[in-house]
């Protein structure tokens, strides 16, 4: 209500027909008006803060084993205690602490893999879209080749060959997940290649690098950010898959995929061992996808008012 009155008073004061609402204010209103984006951002922000502050928040050392405290159920269970809120695993390590440290691994992998693949995919896509012709033919062939390879299979084969570790998973996923960036960058670049502001920059004597980086890239960035959120979620799920299969992050690191894998023998009798990391994974991926969807809606001109 107070918002509406302030707008009205601006109109009468400024003697104009249009209410003077600054651009950032309109963006903020759009952001707050989009429930999915708001919810996704809050959840994602919370997880990021928890992950960053993990060393100060965790009640126990996530690597500390205690055989006498194995398989303690979580606090809501009748045998649970506040000492271990989410219980302990088969080696007596505190589950909450491992979960928080696992969030760091998931986010690190998601962000780094998406950044690496974003760099590769955007470069290839922009070059293919802008130059067209033979460059486009070669890059499109590379994209098709990449699309023909099943990601999980290649990732499994490669990590079996070189051995799994955090860095390996990041590099592997970064080298595998660039296809969507390339496709999106290529098609958006093609749409803008013949725009007159590009021609104008050319006539002014701007270098090709300037045109690509300063004129073209800002215009396709919003589409790429949406792809980036999708690929982050994709990378996080793939890391969990690889770790579950024993070829990703290696124990004793607390990866969520690894936690599910380690708990799978107990899932019929102590379901929380896989339910807790499973739900965490689902919530994180859901939040990232909500943010991605929301950003796409914010950028779509038809969604603006």
């Amino acid at each position, binding site marked *: 209500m107070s918002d509406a009155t302030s707008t009205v008073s601006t109109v009468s004061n400024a003697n104009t027909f249009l209410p003077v609402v600054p651009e950032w204010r309109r963006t903020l209103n759009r952001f707050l008006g989009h429930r999915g984006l708001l919810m996704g951002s809050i959840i994602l922000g919370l997880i990021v803060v928890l992950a960053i502050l993990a060393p100060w928040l965790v009640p126990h050392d996530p690597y500390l084993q205690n055989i006498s405290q194995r398989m303690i159920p979580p606090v809501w269970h009748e045998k649970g205690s506040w000492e271990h809120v989410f219980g302990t695993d088969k080696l007596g390590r505190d589950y909450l602490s491992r979960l928080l440290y696992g969030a760091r691994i998931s986010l690190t992998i998601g962000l780094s893999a998406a950044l690496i693949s974003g760099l590769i995919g955007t470069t290839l896509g922009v070059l293919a879209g802008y130059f067209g012709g033979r460059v486009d033919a070669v890059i499109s062939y590379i994209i098709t080749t990449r699309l023909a390879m099943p990601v999980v299979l290649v990732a499994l084969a490669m990590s079996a060959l070189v051995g799994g570790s955090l860095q390996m998973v990041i590099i592997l996923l970064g080298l595998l997940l660039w296809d969507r960036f390339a496709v999106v960058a290529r098609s958006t670049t093609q749409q803008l290649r013949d*725009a*007159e*502001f590009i*021609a*104008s*920059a*050319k*006539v*002014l*004597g*701007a270098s090709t690098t*300037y045109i690509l980086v300063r*004129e073209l890239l*800002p*215009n396709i960035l919003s589409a790429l950010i949406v792809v980036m959120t999708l690929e982050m979620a994709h990378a996080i799920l793939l890391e969990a898959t690889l770790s579950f299969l024993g070829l990703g992050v290696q124990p004793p690191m607390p990866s969520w995929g690894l936690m599910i894998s380690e708990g799978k023998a107990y899932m019929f009798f102590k379901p929380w061992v896989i339910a807790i990391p499973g739900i965490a994974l689902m919530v994180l991926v859901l939040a990232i996808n909500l943010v991605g969807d929301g950003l796409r809606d914010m950028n779509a001109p038809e969604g603006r008012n």
Partner: protein
Amino acid sequence: MAEYALELTNLSRHFYLKNGAFKEPTLLKAVDGISLRIRPGETLGLVGESGCGKSTLAKMILGLLEPTDGDVLINDKMRGASSRLSMSRQLQPIFQDPYSSLNPRKTIEQIIRLPLQLHKMGDANSQQKAVKDISDLVGLPERLLTNYPGQLSGGQRQRVAIARALILKPNILVCDEPTSALDVSVQAQILNLLMDLKKELGLTYLFISHNLGVVEHLVDRVAVMYRGKIVEQGTREDIFQNAQHPYTQALLSSVLTPEPALGLPEVLDSSAWNQAS
């Protein structure tokens, strides 16, 4: 001073259209041996129907497309002999669509200032002053400089495009249908602005249009283009009062008059000018 501001000698551009994998491609002569001369301070109108090669010609003059044959001489110097940067200080374009000619992610000030930055002219303060001066000249309110193109009207955007073209002080402007994307009421404002600028700065215009009413309003000489060739050229009076070529006659008779009582224009038989050319 150069004898001709812009001279085209036998300029041609051919395209090959693919007809499938095993068929011979068809040769399309988009621009076919055009020679034109524009004296400094003169306004030449290039008219012709859609698809006759007007925009291909403009692209070659601007250096966006390599000619198949022939040369473009700007102030008696060959295009290609000197750098793009020095060419762009002499000749600037004004494009048709002010909705696509301004980068939507840059502010108006950044857009108008870009030429100065690319040419490394002056420091930040003098560049800002130059942007303000040129905005005054084209009638762009200073408060719009911090806005984005999406917040401006079509006429305002075209003023921005004109400001950007003029900030390097070129002596030739190539206007490729500069008003066809604008409302009729705004068209006149932009045309008057272009004429005022011409008087004030002594500019040379190549004015490309399919709108004969616009051309009659502001050019000194007219060249009529049809199927990649110039079929007739002469002074404004020559062409508009005493057209010789049948295609020019047909083009002139196709203009809709503002009098509804006169009805639709009569369509002439196209075989007449196809034989003549």
